[in-house]
C-alpha cells in the first residue's frame, strides 16, 4: 500500500513541477493543486451530480445482477436455452454500447431510466459468463454424491452448486460494478442535464478543465469505493475463498 501511494504522490508532484516550470496553460491540462481547489469549491454541485451518477450506476448494477444471475442458471441447466440465448448474448456484447446509447435515449427518453439501462447492458455480461462458468465448475464428485442421495435439482443447486459458484459470481460482480460506472457516464455523455458525465461534457465545452478533472476524480473515487464494497461483501460471504487467495498471495509477495 505504501509503495503505490508514494508513486502516485511522486507523479503528482512531478506533474505540478513540470507544469509550473513550463507554464502549461491551465485550460489544457490543469494543475493537481488547482483540481483539488476546484473540487473543494464546487463540492456541493459535484456531490449532487455524483449522487445522480451513483444512483444510475447502482440501478444498472442491480438490474444486471437481477437479470444476469438467472440467465447464467438457465444457460447452465438447459442446453436448449444455451444454444438459443448464448449467441444472442454475444451479439449484444459485440455491438459497442456507445453506439446503442443514442438509440436507447430515443426509446427511453433523456431521464435516468435510459442511463440505468445502458449501465445494465454494459455490466450484465461478465456476471452471466462468470456465474455460468462457476456453476459449470462444480466438482463432478459432489454432483454424483447428490445424485446418489437422490437430492432434488433445487436442493443440489442451493446447497452445492450456487455456493460453490459464489467466488466466480463475485469476480463477475467486481468487473460489473466498474463497468456500471462507465455505462452510466456514457449514457450521460449522450444526452443528459445531470450527472458527472454531464458535468464533464459541459465543463469542457466552457474550457473549465479544472471542473472536468474534479468530476473525473469523483468518478474514480466512486468506482474504487464500489469495487471495495463488492470485495468486502465477497469477504463476508465467502471467507474461505478470500483465505485461499491470501495464501496464494503470500507466495507472490516478497
Amino acid at each position, binding site marked *: 500500500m505504501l509503495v503505490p501511494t508514494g508513486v502516485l504522490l511522486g507523479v503528482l508532484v512531478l506533474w505540478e513541477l513540470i507544469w509550473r516550470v513550463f507554464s502549461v496553460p491551465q485550460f489544457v491540462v490543469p494543475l493537481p493543486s488547482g483540481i483539488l481547489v476546484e473540487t473543494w469549491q464546487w463540492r456541493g454541485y459535484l456531490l449532487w451530480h455524483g449522487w445522480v451518477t451513483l444512483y444510475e450506476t447502482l440501478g444498472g448494477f442491480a438490474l444486471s445482477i437481477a437479470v444476469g444471475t438467472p440467465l447464467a442458471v438457465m444457460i447452465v441447466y438447459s442446453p436448449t436455452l444455451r444454444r438459443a440465448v448464448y449467441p444472442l448474448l454475444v451479439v449484444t456484447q459485440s455491438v459497442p454500447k456507445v453506439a446503442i446509447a443514442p438509440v436507447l435515449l430515443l426509446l427511453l427518453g433523456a431521464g435516468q431510466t435510459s442511463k440505468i439501462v445502458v449501465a445494465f447492458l454494459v455490466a450484465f455480461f461478465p456476471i452471466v459468463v462468470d456465474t455460468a462458468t462457476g456453476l459449470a465448475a462444480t466438482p463432478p464428485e459432489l454432483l*454424483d454424491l447428490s445424485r*446418489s442421495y437422490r437430492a432434488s435439482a433445487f436442493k443440489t443447486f442451493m446447497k452445492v452448486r450456487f*455456493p460453490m459458484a459464489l467466488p466466480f459470481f463475485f469476480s463477475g460482480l467486481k468487473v460489473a460494478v466498474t463497468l456500471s460506472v462507465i455505462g452510466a457516464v456514457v449514457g450521460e455523455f449522450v444526452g443528459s442535464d445531470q450527472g458527472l458525465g454531464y458535468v464533464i461534457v459541459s465543463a469542457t465545452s466552457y474550457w473549465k478543465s479544472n471542473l472536468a478533472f474534479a468530476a473525473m476524480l469523483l468518478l474514480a473515487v466512486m468506482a474504487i469505493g464500489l469495487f471495495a464494497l463488492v470485495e468486502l461483501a465477497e469477504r463476508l460471504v465467502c471467507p474461505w475463498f478470500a483465505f485461499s487467495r491470501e495464501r496464494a498471495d503470500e507466495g507472490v509477495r516478497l
Partner: protein
Amino acid sequence: MIELAAVSKTYRSRHGEAVRAVEDVTLDVKEKEFVSLVGPSGCGKSTLLKLVSGLTPVTRGAIRIRGQEVREPFPDVGFVFQSAVLLPWRTVVDNVLFSIEMLGGSRHEHRDRAQALIELAGLAGFERKYPWELSGGMQQRVAICRALVHDPSILLMDEPFGALDGAPRPAGARARRRAATAAHGRHGVHAGLQGAERRGPEPHLHAGEPCAPQLRTGSAPCWCRRACCSACSCSGS
C-alpha cells in the same frame, strides 16, 4: 449381497466410437466383505463403482443388491473419492452432516453419530474447523465420516487413500497402479477407516492384466512382499 453378472459398460466417445470401459465382470461380494479392485489407471475401476452405485446404467449384464436389480442411484451407499471434495463454507461437523441434509434427515438426530465418527477418525477438537484449516489427510478423513454418517450398508471408495499413503516409489519402476476399493458391511467400513494406518486394506485382491479390473477375494491380509504387490498400497518386497 452385491452381485455382478457379466457386467459390461460401453461409453460412446465424443467422436462416436465405442469405448469399452468394463467388460464382462462377474463378482459376488458377501455381507461384511471388503473387496479391492486393483488395476492400472484407465482400466475401469471407477466406472465399476459408478455402475454398482447406480449412477451409471450398465450396457449389458446386471447388478443386483440383496437380489434387487440396480437401475437408479440409491441412498444406501457411502462414497469416498480420491480427493476429499468437502464444502469449503462448512465446518467439519457440518460437512459430515451434509449427507443427512441431502437425504432429508434430521441433523439433530444424527449429531451424536457424526460426533462419534469424527472422534473415531481422530478429528476430535476439529469439529468447528473449516476444511482449509485441515491437512489433506484430515480432509479425507472428514470425507470418510461424511460417507458413513447415514449408516449405509455399502461403502464405495474410489482410491480413497491416495492422499493418505503417498509412499514414494522408485522412479522408473512399474507404472504405479492404483486401487479402487469397494467395501460393504459395517465390518468393512471399519477396516477402511483404519486401513490407512495399517498399510493397505486387509482382505486383499490382486490383478495385473491391464484393461479389465480383475478381482480375487481373499481373506488373508496382504502382508506379502512380492513383486505383484506393487499394485497395492502396502510396500511389497
